[in-house]
């Protein structure tokens, strides 16, 4: 009872103290840093820019502030020489516990206040795609839990050392490590979680789970360290060892410390989020596996049931083998390392199976014995929480499984057969997936998914595929059917994005671009069977296309991007730009290794968008909003100090130089190169001649060794030399 009284007294006292108030005020302001100075989330989605970054910066800054406040408050009694006095009134361990605990409500108050203040700002900045779930989770996890961690760490440092300056240095080093050397290690960055993007249109539970896991393990660990330091709280004028020995007479204290630290160790080592794939991308033992003799696979089916509430998957995969070798053989499958294989049955009998420890490219190897019978039906039951690749641990979140979005790729969908050849049919596959009723299933291939039954709010979908892998998207999608360029296009985008897409005239843009580009450059190679799916994906940092489907990264369709300048004068024109990338910019079109190369996907894309706009709105409009802008920006670029005096650029250290070249490359790619192409157009004899050249370049037979379209290719096709296109 006395403790409770003291605790509430302590909280009330803190609330009136100037330093605590200052820390609260600064904490409320701290998300500002995420809009300006500290922007760890690199993606361009609205949620990344206006929610993740402010919350992350808020966590980092207010975490440090609360650490400092903790030290200040703990040192206060010592400074004021009240120690002997308070020690007499209450055992020092109790006092220490209460002092640290009293800071937690202050931290909670700071968080609540921050969330209240920033809520309207976020709604205003993020617009129609903003929602409360993401907001609360982002602030609680990215910012909120940084505060108790910092308080525990600082308090532990003080209780060990009993010196404010020394513990401040320790705490600063601990926080500094998180911000620098540990910043790219998702488990170690205790202060600033490793978040690169939050999706606007779909959910973000996967990345929230990962951050929550990191936070909880650290809180456990720091609580353990704190308990250890608490044992060392000096009492009866004894030293650190004497006090610790005295404290340990109550056994639950060391036991609690030990338990917490062991929990932390286990939690750290056995994390379920990221796999242990071989970091060396040259290691491809799964791909080099020899095919088995005398055994072929004639088809497979899979029934997949994702659990959208806890982000797991359960599945049953059936493989049809015909084994003509007359002996038992071992079939190998790649399976997501997070999955457990529950059972394997061959023709109804239990078959021996094992999952290997080696992992590569986000797969572990499952080996199952295929008996020496002619036709074998192998049934594998598997399930669990899919892990993401360790190589992408700084870019987590793509294996999102929720009511809003699902993306299951290859071995995360069903075990991927590695060492058995198909019979004549290829590997025909029939996939069934059970999902909440409102979700649309979009297989990333030419075939359509068909809804075969529905009950209890769940629906079963079925589609045909071929091959050993396969990618499945599902989500709360809107589908628009558009006929353009002689093919049927299914344009899928997130329901939350409807407003933005409609404002930007998305479906008209699709029609315009596909018509124009098909006519001028030729049909898309991956549009198969007269149909093409354009799927807006969750933020991914790129896209891929093939087999009748192509991804559109949501990052390219945010209202910030659509309203931004450089890619077009109006949202609809930016939409056109992004869609033209389906022709110029996917897969093997441009060498992605040097992102500052002036010759990039952007040059031809910007040029094509300009031509489309010219056709739509006339030459004057295109001149005013395109060529004139390019000229202005390019002139500015030529005036830039580093362009005028390149020797100063060479003097700079490597990283600075790269940064500046990167900053300048935007103009070179988006303005200078289109101007050069425009100049080439004049030199080759007009628009029609240029269209002919580009059409040839688009449909050229790429060299497998270096499949990219180079600037030299372009110049050769035009019959021009590099100096012909110099602007001046």
């Amino acid at each position, binding site marked *: 009872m006395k403790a409770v009284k003291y605790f509430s007294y302590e909280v009330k006292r803190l609330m009136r103290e100037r330093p605590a108030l200052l820390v609260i005020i600064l904490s409320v302001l701290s998300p500002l840093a995420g809009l300006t100075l500290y922007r760890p989330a690199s993606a361009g989605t609205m949620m990344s820019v206006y929610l993740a970054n402010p919350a992350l910066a808020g966590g980092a800054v207010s975490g440090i502030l609360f650490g400092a406040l903790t030290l200040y408050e703990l040192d206060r009694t010592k400074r004021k020489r009240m120690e002997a006095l308070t020690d007499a009134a209450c055992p020092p361990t109790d006092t220490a516990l209460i002092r640290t605990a009293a800071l937690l409500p202050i931290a909670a108050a700071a968080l609540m206040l921050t969330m209240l203040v920033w809520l309207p700002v976020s709604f205003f900045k993020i617009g129609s795609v903003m929602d409360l779930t993401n907001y609360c989770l982002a602030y609680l996890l990215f910012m909120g839990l940084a505060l108790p961690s910092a308080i525990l760490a600082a308090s532990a440092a003080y209780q060990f050392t009993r010196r404010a300056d020394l513990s401040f240095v320790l705490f600063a080093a601990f926080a500094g490590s998180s911000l620098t050397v540990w910043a790219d290690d998702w488990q170690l960055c205790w202060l600033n979680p490793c978040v690169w993007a939050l999706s606007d249109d779909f959910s973000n539970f996967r990345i929230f789970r990962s951050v929550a896991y990191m936070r909880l393990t650290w809180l456990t660990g720091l609580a353990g360290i704190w308990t250890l330091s608490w044992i060392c709280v000096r009492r009866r004028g004894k030293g650190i060892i004497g006090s610790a020995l005295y404290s340990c007479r109550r056994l639950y204290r060391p036991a609690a410390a030990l338990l917490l630290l062991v929990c932390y160790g286990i939690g750290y080592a056995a994390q379920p989020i990221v796999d242990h794939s071989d970091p060396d991308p040259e290691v491809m033992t799964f791909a080099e596996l020899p095919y088995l003799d005398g055994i072929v696979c004639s088809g497979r089916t899979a029934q997949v049931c994702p659990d959208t509430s806890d982000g797991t998957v359960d599945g049953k995969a059936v493989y049809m083998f015909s084994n003509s070798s007359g002996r038992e053989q071992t079939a190998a499958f790649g399976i997501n390392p997070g999955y457990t294989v529950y059972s394997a049955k061959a023709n109804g009998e239990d078959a021996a199976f094992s999952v290997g420890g080696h992992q590569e490219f986000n797969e572990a190897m499952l080996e199952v014995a295929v008996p020496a019978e002619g036709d074998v039906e192998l049934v594998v039951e598997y399930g669990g929480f899919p892990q993401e690749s360790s190589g992408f641990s700084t870019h987590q979140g793509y294996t999102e499984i929720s009511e809003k979005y699902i993306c299951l790729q290859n071995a995360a969908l069903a075990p991927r057969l590695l060492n058995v050849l198909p019979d004549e049919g290829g590997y025909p596959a029939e996939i069934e997936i059970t999902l909440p009723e409102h979700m649309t299933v979009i297989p990333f291939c030419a075939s359509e998914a068909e809804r075969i039954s529905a009950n209890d709010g769940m629906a079963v979908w079925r589609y045909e595929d071929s091959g050993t892998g396969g990618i499945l998207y599902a989500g709360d999608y809107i589908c628009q059917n558009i006929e353009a360029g002689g093919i049927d296009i299914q344009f899928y985008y997130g329901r939350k994005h409807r407003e933005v897409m409609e404002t930007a005239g998305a479906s008209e843009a699709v029609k315009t671009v596909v018509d124009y580009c098909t006519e001028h450059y030729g049909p898309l190679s991956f549009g198969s069977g007269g149909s093409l799916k354009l799927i807006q994906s969750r933020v991914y940092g790129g896209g891929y296309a093939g087999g009748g489907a192509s991804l559109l990264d949501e990052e390219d369709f945010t209202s910030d991007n659509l309203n931004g300048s450089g890619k077009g004068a109006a949202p609809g024109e930016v939409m056109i730009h992004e869609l033209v990338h389906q022709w110029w910019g996917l897969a093997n079109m441009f060498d992605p290794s040097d992102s500052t190369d002036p010759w990039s996907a952007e040059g031809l894309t910007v040029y094509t968008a300009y031509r489309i706009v010219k056709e739509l709105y006339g030459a004057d409009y295109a001149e005013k909003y395109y060529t004139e802008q390019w000229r202005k920006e390019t002139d500015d670029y030529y005036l*830039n100090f580093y362009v005028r005096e390149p020797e*100063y650029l060479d003097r700079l250290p490597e990283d*600075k130089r790269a940064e500046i070249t990167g900053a300048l490359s935007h103009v070179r790619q988006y303005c200078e190169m289109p101007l050069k192409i425009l100049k080439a157009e004049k030199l080759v004899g007009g628009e029609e001649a240029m269209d002919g050249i580009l059409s040839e370049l688009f449909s050229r037979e790429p060299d497998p060794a270096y499949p990219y379209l180079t600037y030299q290719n372009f110049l050769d096709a035009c019959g021009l030399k590099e100096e012909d296109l110099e602007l001046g």
Partner: protein
Amino acid sequence: MGKIFIYECKRLLCNKFFFGILLILLFYGRQVLNDITIMGVSHTAPFSAWSFGDYLSRMIPVLWIATLLFLTFFTSPAARRVSVLTDAAPMPPRRYEAVRCCAALAASVLTALVCIAEAAVFYGVYFGRCDIGSLTAPALVTALPAIMFALGSGRFLGQINERLVYIWMAAPLAAAALPLPGAMGIWNGSFFTEYPLLTGSTEPAFAVPAEIAAVQCAFLVCGAVMSVCRFGKK
């Protein structure tokens, strides 16, 4: 009197609080230099007087807040308690306050010098040149009026109400966000980014148009007057 000035300076400078401010200032300065100044402002070199002036105008909010904090250092309740002791010293309180104001000014000027020195080191390391002469003019026209005005206005507001000084700290942030008239271009940095473009040449020499100079002078004088004069009750 000199002795007391030195004592007050020492009290202000040899203090964790002063070093904390310096640390924040250096960190913020480094960010500005590395992210913005390094690109050069309005086509000019990063080490031109224009880019340097832009850097300083971005540092004004920090210098401003620092100056006001130095002032509150002498007027906070804790400082008042000390002043009960020092008031016993044989010196008229009016004189004594002037000395403290001078000490705050000295600390602010020192902070500004640190900020300038940081830029000079940055120029030396990255560009191998550091022409202090060309940096003097922008420093004088940008930092000095800001510090002086912060000191004067802060002292004035402090006499009305202690809390007003804290609110006043946000003033330059507001100035940076507001569309100020061209003559006040130094306070939101627009002068340094826009004026060189008007000259038409790529590396224009540093020049201050009359109206800007007049406004800065007015701020300087206002600040000086307010920090010397005494207002209100006794």
